[in-house]
């Protein structure tokens, strides 16, 4: 698509795949946030970015250059984008939302139990505990 801009094949490769580069950057930023942040809500934000990057990846895979939205039109020569990837991502979005919901409700419970959502503080609060789940709570 950028052949008119530049004759260099390397630059063509880089510019021609710009959607994939964006996906990769977003993916890495998301994953980095998950790994580096101690705040459990921020971790979930990173996780969501990571997932969203995959959504973009799928949708750009399904895009056909010059293709219209995959809605039936009378013209027999009409070029459609691939609808399947968008449908898959619709499902994946639902999964992502459900994951986020479960994750956030866990964070709420952690906040109630520990009074903090910082991973380090949570670990420090549990540091002195015995490895076994609290004894005596079982048959009560």
């Amino acid at each position, binding site marked *: 698509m950028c052949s008119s801009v530049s004759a260099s094949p390397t630059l063509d490769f880089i510019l021609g795949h710009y959607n994939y580069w964006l996906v990769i950057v977003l993916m890495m930023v998301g994953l980095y946030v998950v790994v580096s942040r101690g705040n459990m809500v921020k*971790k979930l934000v990173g996780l969501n970015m990571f997932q969203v990057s995959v959504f973009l990846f799928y949708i750009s895979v399904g895009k056909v250059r010059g293709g219209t939205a995959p809605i039936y039109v009378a013209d027999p020569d009409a070029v459609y984008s691939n609808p399947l990837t968008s449908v898959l991502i619709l499902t994946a979005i639902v999964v992502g939302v459900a994951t986020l919901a479960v994750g956030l409700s866990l964070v709420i419970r952690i906040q109630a139990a520990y009074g903090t959502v910082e991973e380090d503080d949570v670990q420090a609060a549990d540091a002195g505990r015995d490895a076994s789940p609290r004894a005596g709570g079982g048959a009560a």
Partner: protein
Amino acid sequence: MPPAVVDFVLQHLPALQVVVPMVAAPLCLMLSRGALAGGLALIVALLCFAMSLLLLHQVVTGGPISYALGGWPPPIGIEYRVDTMNAFVLVIVAATSALVLPFARKSVRGEIEPSKQALFYTVFTLCLCGLLGVTITGDAFNIFVFLEISSLSTYVLVAMGARRDRRALTASYTYLIMGTIGATFYVIGLGLLYQATGTLNLEDLAVRLAPLGELTSVRAGFAFIMVGLGLKLAMFPLHAWLPNAYTYAPSVVSIFLAATSTKVAVYVLLRFMFTVFGYDFPVVELSLATVFVPLALAAMFIASTVAVFQTDLKRLLAYSSVAQIGYMILGFSMASVTGLTATIVHMFNHAAMKAVLFMVAGAVVYRVGSTAVASFAGLGRQMPWTMAAFVIGGLSLIGVPLTVGFISKWYLILGALETGDWLIAIAIVASSLIAVMYVWRVVEIAYLTPAPADRKPVREAPLSMLLPMWALALICIYFGTDAQFTATIGTNVAQDLLDGIGSNGIGSNDIGSNDIGSNAVGDGPAADLPASEGVIQ
């Protein structure tokens, strides 16, 4: 039953296997009383078990079943495809749930708040539905959806341990983060494969991927899928979520997860490695030798050694699970019929022995209130049946002859010797010796240390716990003395996997021939079951 109904059920068995628990889950919620919901969950689990046995029988006698969901023929529609391998895994999952739920009655009453018991059974049934769905489906994206149904319900189940210890919450949170990263990796890999082939049907993928071995994006897809599944199955360096999740989850959940969820993930891994990519695929062979074998050996030694030093029984068993997953990985890494047989057989055997051991832990929680290894003192006399079951499970874990563990290790060692890897054979025996150490620690405390004087005398576990526990313990012994059933299935599956499906031009023979015409009403089960919901209420 009128023959028309029987016909209908047999026809739609693959769909019913998943739809029944899926419909039952919200019904459990509506029953709102723990005991009623538990009863319904048990009925559903028994139904699922019966259906999985029927499916296994159909597949063993009549060859693979292809079921077009909604009457849309594959590869366009979602296909449920049952062959010996996944029918066997279905039996493992369904049988475990049918044995765990009777055990759950008392255990859940002890560990979960009364107001949340119905919710517990709802989520449990949903988790069962997800695991069965992952196993039965022949569509790669459908695997992801079911994997997340089972994983999301697992996170909730683990977090329900918070009544006993708040660390269940953080364990569940970590599991959620790791599990989601794993699932997303799987989706990325799948996207790369879809980009290269334009299909999501596993059989179709196998055919279309065969000539694409040199494509970098396909290789990257393979790597993403393997890492994603590795996270889900707690393959050695990716196992960090497992010990905490198993330790702090309610006892019933630990039993169920330890016996089923990692097995299902191993199944998906095998499916991708051998059916979709095929052993001949360039990267597969390479990754087996350079990645999977070393990681399997590391898991066997490091995780077993860590298990020896644990002060909590459930955590000890969790690390032992990581080590046992190492054996499964080692088996298929040999890429021989014997090695793969070992993996398949060990999936069944490990499910049985780990379920026994976690049931013992659950019974001890119920009576003593703790799973600390130290609190087992004197239980050999006070809970003789429970501890005897522990000994049987422990011996299986070590791999003593006449228990199922021996059969698994026998095939593993045979596989290693076939390829001439003496070192691996020695490593298998050596790592079993580490298992002796961690099992003996618990046995020693239970039988040789007197009960603490200040503890009230402990009674034997109730019958509803002992019966499922001993049913599994007897399975451990029965299939250890007469392994014909498991070994025959294992060998058949291994043969099928190594023959590779792509090479015999699948897509032409089974698909479309037997079921599709008759499944024009394939949305029948989905449409009919909600109607019967009204009847049950």
